[in-house]
């Protein structure tokens, strides 16, 4: 820190150790504890900053293949996707891409922003069942982001075949953060046919996700 005169060497005074030590000690302290008053402007550039000192971006521009495979039924018509059907969708929250874990390593503590984007399909034609009183079973996908078990964002997601982008922010302590990007479907109602009428009785696709990618920024304290 900035120091003013601790010992002024004046003319003809004794060449005592204190005449040298006191001022040098103050200067030594000053040069070892440089603060914002002393450091020049524009001194911190990319070359001088340790990687991930201030922030860290975690980006995956293609998560796995981009498609969900947790519920992939092959017993569907060729005009449908190998995707989640009533027969293969076990209900509950499933990961966007199974078989992968998302860990934000080296998070130093501070603010986290995370977004998850992609496209999703929901078969919503059967929402208005005859024996369902209003409001019936409107079909949609729910999406949520969990960070270290804490819900960062959760919302009603796509209801047709459309793109989605869900994001959230939170403050987290330091340490590796485990992230879960999850989806769940509204299950078919009691009136819904779950197989087509064609020969072979193919299963009806209820929902799918693809084009998935995610992006996170940790801003450290």
């Amino acid at each position, binding site marked *: *820190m*900035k*120091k*003013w*005169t*601790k*010992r*002024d*060497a*004046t*003319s*003809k*005074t*004794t*060449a*005592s*150790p*204190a*005449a*040298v030590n*006191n001022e040098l000690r103050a200067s030594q302290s000053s040069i070892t504890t440089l*603060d*914002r*008053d*002393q*450091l*020049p*402007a524009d*001194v911190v550039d990319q070359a001088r900053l340790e990687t991930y000192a201030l922030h860290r971006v975690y980006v995956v521009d293609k998560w796995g293949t981009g498609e969900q495979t947790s519920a992939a039924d092959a017993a569907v018509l060729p005009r449908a996707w190998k995707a989640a059907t009533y027969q293969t969708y076990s209900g509950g929250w499933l990961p966007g891409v199974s078989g992968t874990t998302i860990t934000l390593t080296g998070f130093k503590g501070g603010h986290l922003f995370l977004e998850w984007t992609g496209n999703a399909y929901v078969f919503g034609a059967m929402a208005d069942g005859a024996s369902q*009183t*209003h*409001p019936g079973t*409107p079909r949609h996908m729910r999406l949520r982001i969990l960070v270290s078990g804490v819900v960062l964002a959760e919302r009603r997601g796509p209801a047709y075949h459309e793109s989605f982008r869900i994001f959230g922010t939170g403050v987290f302590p330091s340490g590796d953060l485990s992230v879960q990007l999850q989806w769940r479907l509204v299950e078919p109602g009691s009136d819904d046919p779950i197989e087509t009428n064609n020969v072979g009785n193919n299963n009806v696709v209820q929902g799918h996700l693809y084009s998935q990618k995610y992006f996170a920024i940790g801003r450290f304290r």
Partner: protein
Amino acid sequence: MIQDNYQTPLAGGVATRLPQDPQNANICQNLIVDKSTGGWSTRLGYEQFKIGASSWSPFQNCGPIYSVHVAQNLASGARQSVLFEEGGNLHLLYDSAGLVQLKTIRSGRSVPTATESGSWYTDTPYGTVITNGVDRPILVYPWPTPQAASVQPENLARPFGFDGLPAPADPFKVVPMPLTSGGTYDPKAGGGAVTLWCPSDPSAIPSGGQWGLGLANNKNGSDRDKSSIFGWSVSFITDTGSEGPTSSLSSATWSILGETSSGGADGSEGWRHACLLDIPVGPDGTVARKLYRTTNYSDDYVFQGDTTLYFLDIVRNNIDTQHFDAIATAALGQPAPDIATGPLPAPAARFSALYSGCLFLDGGIQDGRTLYYSAAGLIEQFDAASYIELSSQGGMITALFAHYTDLLVFRENGIDIVRGSYAAGFTVTTLSHSVTCRAPHSIQAIPGLGVVFLGQDGVYAITGGLEGGAVSDLVNLTVAQDDLIERITVDCHPKAVATFAAELREYQLYVPADGSDRPSLGLVFHVDRLGQADQLAPWSTRLGFPVGSVATLYDGSVIFGHNVGNEAGGTDSQRGLFVMSSKRALGSSVVGDTMTDGPPPTSIYRSAWWSGGDPQVQKQVSYVTVWLMTTGGPLVTMRHYKDFSLTPVLERTYTAQPPDATALPELDSVVLGAGDYRTERLVPLRFSVAHMSAAWFCFELETTEDIVLVGYEYTYTTKGTLIVQGPRA
């Protein structure tokens, strides 16, 4: 001849009361206590804040600086903000990245007169509250502050507290849905009217029946239309977490139609309505708006005329100007908060203090006997009933100081103590009826002593406490220095400023003296001296330090603002902020076109009048031995006085070197490679004194060079001759 010896192993400070303790001093000016030896050292001075500056920039236009404060925004001194005022401007000294700039946060503020003190600063977790008794109190949080000049410094501060009630929330007119059959659905929009329907049947829409205000069913309403009336109120929440007063109630009313003919059973049914509100945007510092609403208080419902407000929603920004309210009465939150809140009760407060989590404000010049306090932890939230009316005896409030477990309330004719907590309530007791403090900036907490302040008749210390078995006492520290206290310009006590310099362990008090309207004399209390010897006076004086206001930096350095500045005219004289240091100069000034260091301060030590035990007996002092540290070449010229005369006798000049050993090497003459570094040593310099008999005797050292005086002794003889009986009339 047998000679007697009087020894003073450690020289004392200034004491004016006669007869003096002979180990003290008549004059002890511009001296500090040397840390290594405990003696008096002349190594002091002051220098510009901007080290090595060649011009007065950025202080070139600064007038007298009448208040200065150093706020610590981060622990361990990582970020200090130096705030000071001059000429009605509040400046932030922006000291980042090697620049030293001024950012003017406010201008046009009141300039205190000669009988008023400078602004009062109180640090809170949300910034520094600044009050001066005239201008609106402001809250300053001077970070982040990029160096770019384009960032408006006015945004670094905002008015403190709430001005008054917010503007009311303005509901749009509600045009209800028409009759179920025979009616035309013609929703009105624009012209300040809306039709926002909410079906009352749970099957109508998803989550049906859970939304909407007002009555929904008038199917068999043979009497008339049924009305619904709701009222709204809004309050602001600031970045200190405080909630302001709620606005006045504004209401919207609408009716649902009854039967078209008696028994027709065709009145309105099935629709509740949502409302659209225009909500006011809050002033600077507002981070959220809180909305409250009543239930339906029309005559057609059960809560007729009941305008109790319930919590509706928080709008978590200060941007939205409209809000949709579709929350059913059953879903309203708790009633409006118990902690009542109102506008700032003391918009002209002079002093503030943070005690027990509450911010205390005095009422100002016109309301000087009232103390207002905020809710605990919410420094802008003042309840209309949260105030203390002090007793009529004691006068107006002259300062507030939170210390230890109490809040000290200094008043014009006494000192009161406030104790307690917000939850349990506060009580006021009187500490003293007799001691008055009219110098608010002289109050400091001194380690080992307590709270020290300048009273009307001296410097006092409040020691001890009121908890447990502690004993509280009010001690006059300047009983023996009243002559100096008498010199203070009586009406200008409020201009006295003080700080505790931890590095030097000094309580430095600067007072306007000898008729001056601004500090011109320094009184320094050396805390070290308290422990060293009971009898020695711990005071010294400072002369030549143009202190207008003073504060302490994180590392203990004393920073002060010049008390004249550009009032002296021209562009060359000293102005701006300075730091007291060991630089052997009294600042610097522009001479020719160059910034030149000023001369070092003149340090004087004149011992107390010594009479050898009996001032009636004539003595002959043969030697004065001065015990000094061997500071080398500085000249030591001793002169002496006798019997209160004004004319000294000069004796020979020595250098501060050992008298009976090889001279220690000196800077400017030591030869590199040949001389040694030698620590200064304590040596006696014995001056032969020639004077006739004297009843009283003292000696004096006056110098601008580096001297460390530890003690002295007199060698004298006496024949026992008494002085003459008395002057003939």
